């Protein structure tokens, strides 16, 4: 494997990791506040559909982005109402959202575009274009750093950089602000937050809406950044991989970045090589596809470190009377 191949794989890694990263951070906010969310997949799918549709009708990807995020946040609100206000089962609500999104995107898409649930191909300003970072061309000839900067870091759509920035922002919000402290507390011990006179319900709604926002960006990136249009069920399990990444990352932003990059790398390797020889033993591509889930199970089983979820996760908060 020469340097060029490695650079191209890393380039692909960054692209493939971005939707996972947004969804993973989305889950992080929600679950840190004590609301489990397995509806990431559905929210992502709904956002992808709305982003592509709105971008097609308006001709502007930025308006499409707003549409996608709005769709995702609406579903997040539904999840919030079901699991916070009405104290329903969070897992069931999440599953329902996944089914709802998978069905409604196709039904609405068939009605709007009559293309079997697909949206027309987006062109020009209706999709995110790759941006070349400053000095990428001039630095290209600098040994090692130049090619890395040019091939890997530069030349992605803006959402890729937003995703990397979101990791930093998430860390800062969760661990350096008063809001973050309360948000984490509400996922560990909501009674203490309530005793301190802070609204548990309000905090959880905020977290769920932030989750909807980030999940929306993941979906927007899928349909307007990675591809040019929506196709049925295009999230293809990425929401679940993101959940796996979240557990793998032990609910921490920096680890989440690592986990998503790792899973992105696995995807890029799998795309590049159908079979990989490791010391003469061929590893089938199916194994690479299953690896994120296998790693998650290994982590959950406690073989490598220990993944402890937020203590109050999954439980609706009932105020004592």
């Amino acid at each position, binding site marked *: 494997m020469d340097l*060029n*191949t490695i650079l*191209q794989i890393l380039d*692909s890694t960054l*692209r*493939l990791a971005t939707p996972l990263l947004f969804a993973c951070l989305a889950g992080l906010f929600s679950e840190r506040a004590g609301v489990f969310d397995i509806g990431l997949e559905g929210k992502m799918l709904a956002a992808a559909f709305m982003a592509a549709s709105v971008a097609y009708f308006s001709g502007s990807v930025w308006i499409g982005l707003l549409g996608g995020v709005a769709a995702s946040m609406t579903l997040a609100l539904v999840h919030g109402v079901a699991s916070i206000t009405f104290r329903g089962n969070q897992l069931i609500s999440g599953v329902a959202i996944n089914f709802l999104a998978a069905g409604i995107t196709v039904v609405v898409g068939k009605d709007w575009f*009559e*293309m*079997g*649930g*697909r949206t027309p*191909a987006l062109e020009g300003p209706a999709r995110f274009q790759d941006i070349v970072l400053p000095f990428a061309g001039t630095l290209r000839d600098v040994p090692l750093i130049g090619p890395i900067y040019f091939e890997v870091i530069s030349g992605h759509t803006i959402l890729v950089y937003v995703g990397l920035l979101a990791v930093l922002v998430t860390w800062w919000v969760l661990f350096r602000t008063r809001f973050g402290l309360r948000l984490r507390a509400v996922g560990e011990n909501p009674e203490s937050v309530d005793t301190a006179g802070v609204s548990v319900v309000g905090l959880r709604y905020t977290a769920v809406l932030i989750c909807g926002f980030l999940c929306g960006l993941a979906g927007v990136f*899928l349909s307007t950044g*990675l*591809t*040019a*249009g929506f*196709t*049925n*069920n*295009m999230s*293809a*399990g990425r929401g679940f991989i993101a959940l796996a990444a979240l557990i793998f990352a032990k609910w921490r932003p920096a680890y989440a970045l690592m986990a998503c990059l790792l899973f992105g790398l696995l*995807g*890029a390797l799998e*795309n*590049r090589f*159908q079979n990989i020889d490791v010391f003469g033993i061929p590893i089938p*591509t*199916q194994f690479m*596809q299953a690896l994120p889930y296998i790693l998650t199970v290994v982590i959950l089983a406690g073989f490598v470190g220990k993944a402890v979820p937020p203590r109050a996760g999954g439980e609706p908060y009932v105020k004592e009377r």
Partner: protein
Amino acid sequence: MTLMQKFLSAGAALAMSATAALAEPGLIIDLGGKFDKSFNESAFNGATRWVEETGGTYVETELQSEAQREQNMRKMAERGANPVVVLGFANASTLEKVAPDYPDTNFAIVDMVVMGPNVKSIVFSEHEGSYLVGMIAGMATKTGTVGFIGGMDVPLIRKFACGYVQGVKAANPDATVIQNMTGTTPSAWNDPVKGGELTKAQISQGADIVYAAAGGTGVGVLQAAADAGVFSIGVDSNQNHMHPGSVLTSMLKRVDNAVYDTFKAGTEGMFEPGIQVLDLSTDGVGYAVDENNAALITDDMTAAVEAAKAKIIAGEVTVHDYTSDDSCPVM
């Protein structure tokens, strides 16, 4: 009492429609959807053409999941549709089970062979059509490297791949063919993101023509190729119009003709069970040239491909069929 009457009359109506000698034909659209710009859409176009020409009507359902196959097939037969056309190799095991239960209904399956006194199996010589587009790719490539992206990793798609590689090598013996399959589950037919990513990976390895035999995933392949300014080759339906000037040609698989002929024969009482092979000689497969790609196909290419086509029809050139022995001599 009135409810009972309703049931009885409904039952009587059903019985009458079932015994009617020439019922309306039925079509079950497979997973991937009616407007996949590819396989299913081609079938739908055939049915539409039959409607336009005969003024008849047909029954249509669209599968939403694997689990619905049997239920849908039975429902279609019980509704009195005749003949019932099912699309795709994945229906074979279900049809084997369902067809004997409805001896008075004729079934037709595309892309797979199912034996039965009331079943017609329509298979295509995809390897021959792929051979021709492979030749075009072999002649058009400037880098000497071309790509193939398959959908789900099944023998049928390997048949496409094997024919394609043979064609490329026939036109350009030194050419390299990079091959990728999207996945091993049915979701591989509908993952344009992965299709695009695979295309980018192949382009970075030097491929300047990518052939997609991957259903809805192909949309992502064609898009990525158009974005990168390289050529792509479409499949099943004529996909030249999707990115004019970037889609080099399309491997046509005339599922539309198969559906049209079956509908026509079935409703006229001329249904013939057995195996029907649609190949180059019957124009069951071929390559597409229209105003979108006419400038890309040179006269030399046309001459070479037409010569090869004539030789294949005459039996002078044999294109190896992967499904005949589950292996490919050139891979």
